[in-house]
C-alpha cells in the first residue's frame, strides 16, 4: 500500500523535484503509530529534514506524537472525521475519507491529502494532474474513471487548503536533474545491484529490516541457474552460501543483527576455506532483539570481526540510496576477486527510504568474476602467497575446501609453519581490495569530519551549514571501511582531530580509526533515529571550537 507520503514523493519526483521519504513502523502488524516523512526540494536531498513544514495527522495519537516536530511556521492538517482541534492558529481539519468518497473512489484519500499539501506550497496543480494521469494509465478499461476521480480528489484537497487561508509560500520551480531518474528504496537498490553484479543464488531468512530483499529476490531471481529461497535459519542461509560459492556461484544473503550473530561461525569458515559470498547486514537497533524497526549503526565491531580466530572481513557501508546500488556491485566484485566473504552494511534508515537517484547505466557497471582453475587434476588449490585460481566442482582440480588449517591441497595439518603461511596468505589477499574510492573536501584543515554509512546524509547537510558559517573543517567519506583506501588512511593520520558522527554508544568507527593511528573522536547518538542536521551541526561546531581553544592554550 502506498501512503500519502509516498505518493507525495512520487508526484514531486515526477515533476522534477528531489524527494526522499523516511518511515518508521511499529513492531505490531496492525495499528500502532506508523508514520512516513517526505522531504521535497529543488536541490539534492541528503536527510529526512529536521522539522516539519506540514504535519498530516490521520488520528489524535499521531497529532500528539509529532506536534513538537512541527516548525514555527508549520501547518497541521488533521482528519476531522477522527478528531477535532480547537483553533490554534496553525491547523485546519479536513474530512479526508468523506471527500475521497464523494469522488466515487474511496481509495483517492491520498490524493485529497496530496492536493492540500501541494496547494500550501503553491506547487503547480498541473504537476499533480500529470502525475496522476501517468500513474493510473495502466491499459485497463477503467483507467479514465480512476484518473478523473483522483484528479477530482486533488482539487477537493486543494480547495480545502485554499479556504483554510494557510500558505507556506511558493516552492520554486523544480530543476529537473539531468538524465533519467529512478525512485527507489535502499533495499531495492541493493537487490538491483546484486542483479547487476550477476547474482545466481540468494538464500535468506526473514528479519526486519532485511526481509524486503528476500521477498524481492524470490520474485525476481528466477530462470535457469538462478535460485532464491527461504531457509530455516540464518545458520542454514550462511552455510548454504558456502556450498553455492564453492560450487562456483555468486551468492548473497541479507539479514539484520540477530541473524548476523548466528552467521559468525560460517563466516569464519568462508574466510578459512576461501569461498566468495556477499552478506548484507541491514542494521537495526541492538543488541539481542533490540529495536527491530529503528535505525542504528551499532553492528560495526561485529561486522569487522565476526568470527573467532584471526579473521578480518572486508566491509563496505554505503551512505546513500544510490551508493547502495554501487556498493553491492562492488561487494560482489571484491568477493570474487579475493575469494572470501564481503560484508555489506546497510541500515534501516537507508533500507526503507525511497529516494530519487540517477538511474544506473548498466552498460557502465563493471562486473568481475573469480579466476577459475582450468588445468588438470593434482592442483594445489591453496598454494602461493595470495589468491589463486579456484577450481569448480565437475571439472578437474578436485581439492578439499577445508575449515581446519590445511596444506595446499586442502588436507588438515597442524604444522606451525603451515599455519603461519596460510594465515599470511589469507591476510595478503586483502591487499587486492585497496582500490576503494573516497570523498575529500577542504583537506588543508587540521580538523575534519568523517561520518560512515547512512549518517553521511545528515552529516553532509550539517557540513554545508558549517561551511556557510565559515567553520574551519575538512570532510572525508568512504564506503570502503575495510580495507580503508591506504591514501585516505594516510591523510587521516595527519589530522589533529577527526570527528565521527555515528549512531551507537561506543563510537565504534572512531574507535576503529584510533586503533589505526587516527586521532578520532565520536559524536554519538543512540535514540534509534537518524541525526537531525541542526543539532549535529551544533555538536560538531562545539567540538571544533573546543579543540581550537585547546590548541591556542597549548
Amino acid at each position, binding site marked *: 500500500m502506498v501512503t500519502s507520503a509516498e505518493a507525495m514523493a512520487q508526484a514531486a519526483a515526477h515533476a522534477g523535484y528531489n524527494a526522499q521519504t523516511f518511515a518508521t513502523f511499529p513492531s505490531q502488524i496492525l495499528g500502532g503509530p506508523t508514520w512516513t516523512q517526505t522531504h521535497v526540494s529543488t536541490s539534492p536531498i541528503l536527510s529526512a529534514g529536521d522539522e516539519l513544514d506540514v504535519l498530516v495527522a490521520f488520528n489524535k495519537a499521531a497529532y500528539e506524537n509529532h506536534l513538537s516536530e512541527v516548525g514555527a511556521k508549520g501547518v497541521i492538517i488533521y482528519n476531522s472525521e477522527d478528531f477535532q482541534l480547537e483553533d490554534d492558529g496553525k491547523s485546519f481539519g479536513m474530512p479526508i475519507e468523506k471527500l475521497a468518497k464523494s469522488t466515487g473512489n474511496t481509495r483517492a484519500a491520498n490524493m485529497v491529502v496530496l492536493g492540500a499539501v501541494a496547494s500550501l506550497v503553491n506547487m503547480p496543480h498541473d504537476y499533480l494532474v500529470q502525475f496522476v494521469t501517468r500513474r493510473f494509465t495502466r491499459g485497463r478499461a477503467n483507467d479514465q474513471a480512476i484518473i478523473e476521480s483522483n484528479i477530482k480528489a486533488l482539487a477537493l484537497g486543494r480547495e480545502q487548503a485554499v479556504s483554510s487561508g494557510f500558505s507556506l509560500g511558493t516552492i520554486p520551480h523544480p530543476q529537473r536533474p539531468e538524465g533519467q531518474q529512478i525512485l527507489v528504496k535502499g533495499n531495492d537498490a541493493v537487490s538491483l545491484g546484486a542483479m547487476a553484479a550477476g547474482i545466481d543464488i540468494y538464500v535468506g531468512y526473514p528479519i526486519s529490516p532485511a526481509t524486503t530483499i528476500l521477498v524481492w529476490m524470490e520474485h525476481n531471481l*528466477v530462470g*535457469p541457474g538462478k535460485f532464491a529461497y527461504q531457509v530455516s535459519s540464518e545458520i*542454514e542461509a550462511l*552455510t548454504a552460501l558456502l*556450498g553455492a*560459492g564453492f560450487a562456483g556461484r555468486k551468492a548473497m544473503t541479507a539479514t539484520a543483527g540477530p541473524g548476523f550473530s548466528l552467521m559468525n561461525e560460517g563466516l569464519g569458515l568462508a574466510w578459512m576455506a576461501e569461498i566468495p559470498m556477499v552478506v548484507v547486514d541491514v542494521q537495526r537497533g541492538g543488541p539481542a532483539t533490540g529495536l527491530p524497526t529503528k535505525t542504528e549503526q551499532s553492528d560495526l565491531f561485529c561486522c569487522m570481526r565476526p568470527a573467532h580466530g584471526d579473521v578480518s572481513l572486508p566491509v563496505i557501508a554505503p551512505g546513500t540510496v544510490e551508493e547502495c546500488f554501487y556498493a553491492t556491485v562492488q561487494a560482489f566484485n571484491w568477493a570474487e576477486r579475493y575469494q572470501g566473504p564481503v560484508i555489506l552494511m546497510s541500515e534501516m534508515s537507508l533500507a526503507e527510504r525511497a529516494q530519487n537517484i540517477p538511474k544506473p547505466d548498466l552498460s557502465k557497471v563493471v562486473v568481475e568474476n573469480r579466476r577459475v582453475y582450468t588445468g588438470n587434476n593434482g592442483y594445489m588449490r591453496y598454494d602461493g602467497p595470495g589468491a589463486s585460481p579456484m577450481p569448480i*566442482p565437475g571439472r578437474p582440480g578436485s*581439492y*578439499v575446501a577445508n575449515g581446519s588449517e590445511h596444506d595446499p591441497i586442502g*588436507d588438515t595439518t597442524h604444522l606451525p609453519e603451515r599455519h603461519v603461511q596460510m594465515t599470511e596468505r589469507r591476510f595478503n589477499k586483502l591487499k587486492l581490495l585497496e582500490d576503494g574510492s573516497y570523498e575529500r573536501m577542504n583537506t588543508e584543515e587540521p580538523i575534519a569530519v568523517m561520518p560512515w554509512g547512512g549518517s553521511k546524509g545528515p552529516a553532509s547537510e550539517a557540513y554545508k551549514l558549517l561551511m556557510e558559517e565559515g567553520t574551519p573543517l575538512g570532510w572525508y567519506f568512504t564506503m570502503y571501511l575495510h580495507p580503508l583506501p591506504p591514501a585516505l588512511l594516510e591523510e587521516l593520520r595527519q589530522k589533529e582531530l577527526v570527528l565521527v558522527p555515528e549512531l551507537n554508544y561506543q563510537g565504534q568507527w572512531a574507535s576503529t580509526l584510533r586503533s589505526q593511528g587516527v586521532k578520532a573522536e565520536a559524536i554519538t547518538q543512540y535514540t534509534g533515529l537518524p541525526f537531525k542536521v541542526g543539532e549535529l551541526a551544533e555538536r560538531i561546531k562545539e567540538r571544533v571550537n573546543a579543540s581550537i581553544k585547546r590548541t591556542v592554550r597549548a
Partner: protein
Amino acid sequence: MSAKNPEYDFKWCPGCGDFGVRRALEFAMSDRIINREIPMENNVVVAGIGCSGNLVHLLEGDQPYGFHGIHGRTLPIAMGVKMGRPDLNVVVVAGDGDFLSIGMEHIGPQAARNLDITAVVMDNAVYGLTKGQSSPTTELGVTTSSTPYGKLEQSINPLDLYLTLGASFIASGFSGKPRDLAKLITAGMDHPGFAIVHVQSPCTTYNDTYQILKGNPRKGIAPLLWDISEEHDSSDYASAYQAIHSGGWPVGIVYRNADRPTLNQRIQAIQSKVKQKTTQELLDAYDI
C-alpha cells in the same frame, strides 16, 4: 588425498568402523562414474567434524571434490552445492554427534524439501574425536566420559526419526560389510530425493559394539543386526515403521518413496511458469 600425504597426520584407530564406510563409499563412487561415464570430479563429499568426517581426506584413488566445514552443518552446505549445481552428485558424511545432535535442526527441513543428496551417517553412539562423550544414540544409563554416573537421557532411534521427518529414502547398514553397504549407498545416490544411509560404524576405542552387533554364539550373545527380508515392501510406510520397531538393527533399505518430486524438480516446475525479467527491465520499473 591422492597419495600418502606425510603432512596429514590423522589416523583412525585400528578396527574403527569408519574404514569400512570409506571402502563402501569408494566402491559406490567408482561404480557410479563407470556406469554413468562421468568423471570422479562430479562427486562432492561434504564432511562433518569428527573422526568420521576425516573420511574426506582418507579416500584412495581418484579424488572427488570435498568440503570439510564446521560441526553440524553438512546438510545446508550440501544444499548450497546441489542448488548451485544440480548436476553434481552430493554426498554427506557425518558422525552421529554431528548429524543428530548439533546438526539435528537441518534434517527436517531437508526432508521436507526432498533435497536430492545422500547422507551417510556413521553411528558409533559416542563422540569419538572429542574422546568418548555421550551422543544422542548412546543408550540411557551408559557410562561415558561425560556421563560418569550414567547417561541421563534416553537414546533416540534415528531410523524412526528420519521416517517421522519425512526422508524419502532410508537405509540402514553396517560398516563391517563394505560391499553390501556400497549397494545401499548406490541405491541412495540413485534415489531422486533426500536419502539417508545410517551406518552402524563402531568406535573400537570408546564404544566397541562389534560383538553385540554381530553376536557371539559361543558367549550366547544374539546379534543385534538382522537383514531386512526380500519380501519387505520398502515403499510402504507401515512396513518401514514395523521394520524399525522390530528390535535390533535392520540392515537393508527400510523405506523408499521415489514419487515425491525433489526440490529441484519443484523449482523447475515453477520456473517454467514464471517470466524472467532482465536486470534492465527490473531497473526500468523504478523509472520516475
